[in-house]
């Protein structure tokens, strides 16, 4: 079960998690992650960020990635919510959740989904300082490297299997 939402509405993480848990039956592990807007960029205090996206492609790509990650890590449910528009420091910009039989798969799935989201989902972030100056945020090479790591792992089969998780539990 995959759920993708891209919206200007604020994200209430506890409400999102509660709904996700209610819907995720017969799972042993649930992981969720919040991305939060920082109040500073270097030495500059920020008033807000503005999030632009490519409607259509964005939702479609997130859904495809979430589906692929659910299959790859044997997850029963994957959910992602992303905000667009004006977002203030301290507010949640992105929320992802994964549910599966074992914690290792749930952790890996959440991390992989975030790495794909950051490097592939067509969102663009503009920072606005308290004095009104604004600029587009540059993409980071470290995010790209993180995504490539998942592809490398998939090619070489170097990722934990369900059996590993069983062995590592406890």
């Amino acid at each position, binding site marked *: 079960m995959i759920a993708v939402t891209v919206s200007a509405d604020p994200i209430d993480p506890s409400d999102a998690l509660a709904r996700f848990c209610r819907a995720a039956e017969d799972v042993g592990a649930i992981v969720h992650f919040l991305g939060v807007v920082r109040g500073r960029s270097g030495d500059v205090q920020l008033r807000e960020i503005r999030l632009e996206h490519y409607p259509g492609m964005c939702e479609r790509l997130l859904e495809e990635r979430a589906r692929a990650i659910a299959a790859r890590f044997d997850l029963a449910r994957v959910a992602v919510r992303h905000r667009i528009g004006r977002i203030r420091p301290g507010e949640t*910009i992105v929320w992802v959740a994964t549910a599966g039989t074992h914690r290792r798969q749930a952790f890996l799935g959440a991390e992989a989904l975030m790495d794909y989201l950051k490097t592939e989902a*067509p969102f663009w972030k503009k920072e606005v300082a308290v004095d009104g100056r604004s600029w587009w945020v540059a993409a980071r090479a470290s995010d790209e490297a993180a995504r490539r790591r998942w592809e490398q792992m998939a090619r070489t089969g170097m990722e934990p299997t369900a059996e590993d998780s069983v062995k590592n539990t406890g």
Partner: protein
Amino acid sequence: MEDDMSERSEGRLRVLYFAALRERLGLAEEEVDWPPAGGTVACLRAHLAARHDDLASLFTADALKIAVNQRYADAKTLIRPGDEVALFPPVTGG
């Protein structure tokens, strides 16, 4: 039936721009003439660089991303009239 489709879209292409690229061009989208038989992404970049000659470097930049019908494309991807094409800078969500 097929003729109806091609008649509507023949020779035109809708190109969308996002984020910093949209701001630099002062355009969210535009329509360009396009060969009925189609052409590659590389052709489109060259075409747009010539059309916006004062901002040509925006279209030749290595970092530029291109999606055809909402999927990432490479230089060899074929674009046909009527396709939805989008050009944008590297993404920065999350």
